[in-house]
């Protein structure tokens, strides 16, 4: 690509940025009232969770989160369908191994804490799952070819756990004569906790498996 074209693209991008700022800055100054935010904060006692972001993710927009977990699962299936992973890295030296022996349990502990804390303060399934995934990445960097994940059938189970828990809860609620994922107020907190726990494990396993980057050995073709 020649220099003149690059310059033209840079100029056009700058114009686009200026236009975006021209829209964004006056919008901030007028500070429109958000009816959605009011409704979200007002209905929070019905959901049994104190953290409004968790209430949005797991209650009001539970469909959205279910489909998001499905996106995660679909990405992992795509990665697995592209063949085996690259070979494992060489085994870590003594210093890195000692650090991994400390860091991985801490990451798992912090992930569990974030999952529980997500009910009241910032935290939740995605943050906890990200930490579990990070533990898998650290293990893989230290030379574990499977990133700490169990054998292939268990990986499949773990990866589909989030979508599975969501769908089972939804179907049971349908069977009880309610709408799909319309939690009764009395159980809302516990149903959300069950779904979030399953989602944390699923997100952690999916991220670690995605980092491995290929179908686990032992799978049937």
């Amino acid at each position, binding site marked *: *690509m020649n220099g003149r074209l690059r310059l033209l693209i840079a100029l056009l991008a700058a114009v686009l*940025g200026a236009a975006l700022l021209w829209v964004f*800055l006056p*919008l901030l100054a007028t500070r429109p009232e958000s009816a959605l935010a009011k409704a979200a904060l007002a209905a929070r006692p019905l959901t049994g969770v104190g953290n409004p*972001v968790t209430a949005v993710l797991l209650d009001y927009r539970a469909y959205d989160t279910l489909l998001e977990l499905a996106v995660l699962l679909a*990405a992992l299936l795509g990665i697995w369908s592209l063949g085996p992973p690259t070979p494992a890295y060489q085994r870590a030296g003594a210093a890195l191994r000692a650090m991994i022996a400390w860091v991985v349990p801490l990451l798992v502990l912090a992930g569990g804490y974030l999952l529980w804390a997500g009910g009241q303060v910032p935290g939740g399934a995605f943050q906890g799952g990200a930490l579990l995934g990070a533990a898998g990445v650290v293990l893989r960097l230290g030379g574990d070819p499977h990133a700490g994940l169990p054998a292939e059938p268990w990986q499949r189970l773990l990866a589909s756990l989030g979508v599975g828990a969501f769908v089972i809860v939804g179907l049971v609620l349908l069977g009880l004569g309610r709408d799909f994922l319309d939690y009764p107020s009395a159980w809302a907190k516990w149903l959300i906790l069950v779904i979030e726990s399953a989602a944390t494990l699923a997100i952690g396993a999916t*991220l670690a498996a995605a980092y491995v980057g290929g179908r686990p050995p032992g799978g049937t073709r």
Partner: protein
Amino acid sequence: MIPLQALYGSAGVVLFVLGLWSFLVHAPLLRKLIAINIMGSGVFHLLIAIAERGTEPPDPVPHALVLTGIVVAVSATALALVFSRRLEDAGGPPEDEC
């Protein structure tokens, strides 16, 4: 409070534009992928800036959207990385005049 919010959102716009420029100008797939992720970060910045409402608690809906967006972006990036590695194994992308 408003200047801080404006600064944060404007940084998002700058990130978006930088990412867009890099995406259009650079040919290697890995650089394009990083550029798309930077564009996404810019959009997340904007959403978080819009969620701030001064003295009231921040609007939780954009926060939830950003959380959703991060997870989708990470999984799409992982899939794209594996695709580009397979493409590399198969002899690389077709060369053009870029």
